[in-house]
């Protein structure tokens, strides 16, 4: 599983906006709004980490349980799927 297109993140107030750049820019013109945790998850997925690897990495950074972090990652993946931005490998 990976994120379609390349995205660049820009902070506005306490939110991060992901903008598709390069070839993806013409195919996805919207903005993906992410909070701080969402941004961390998005960046890991974009680096090519699996859902499991992302949860493992977050466990080192966040004072939260695996279940809590799994829920957060699932939310972001669902959000990206709803925008048709996930490709299953």
């Amino acid at each position, binding site marked *: 599983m990976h994120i379609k297109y390349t995205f*660049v993140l*820009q902070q*506005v*107030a306490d939110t991060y*906006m992901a*903008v598709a750049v*390069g070839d993806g*820019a013409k195919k996805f*013109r919207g*903005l993906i709004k992410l909070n701080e945790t969402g941004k961390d998850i998005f960046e890991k997925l974009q680096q090519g980490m699996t859902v499991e690897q992302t949860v493992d990495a977050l466990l080192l950074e966040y004072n939260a349980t695996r279940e809590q972090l799994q829920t957060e990652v699932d939310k972001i993946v669902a959000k990206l799927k709803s925008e048709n931005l996930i490709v299953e490998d």
Partner: protein
Amino acid sequence: MITNNYRFAEHVVQISTTHEYFHKLAVEYVTTDSPELVITITGDDLVEEAQLSESSQKAEGLNVVKYPDHSLEVTAVHRKLADAFLQYDILLMHGSVISVDGVAYMFTARSGTGKSTHTRLWREHFGDKAVMVNDDKPFISFTADGKALAYGTPWNGKHRLGKNMSCPLKAICWLERSATNQIKQLSSAEMLDTLLVQTYQPFDPMLKLKTLSLLNELCKKVEFYRLGCNMDPEAALVAYEGMRPK
């Protein structure tokens, strides 16, 4: 082609169009100084502008109105200038800017809410103390000492209210109709969706990122409010008292 040089938000732009209409609207901004930017509106630009106009009207569920070429030229200049001005850290927003005692306030709202009616109440209450900077599409820039500035532009709405001037922008206020008049300060996060909708969003992804970074600056430099208001003169006072420098 008709060509003139104009100074908008401290930058000189040479603008060429086929029709005279844009140049009549922008006469207050004419300069003889040398241009930093050149904008030429071609037939292709008008075709593109007509398509964009049609698709945005359809998206809003409106009956499609076909605008004449001279009007399309005015929006085409606006689009090109808005893209080009991002390189100077200038944002183009949709809103009605009024100043009192040299301090500017921007009102923004869904179309038909009564922005123009509300700023008319300010002019009626404050008389000569209130100056309309721009009634539709002001430019916003940032000063080295950390202020946001609102500039008048020729894109000043159907009532053509505005002036070739600039003024420090203190606050942006989302306006909603309400039976009673009340104002509440909002956080940047609460205002974010409104800011995204009311700011010119370019198609180019790099310019889009630049726009977002300028919006981030704006969030640090101005205050945000939500005004629930009716059409009584009191609405202007409630808004002003809520936002004025204390």
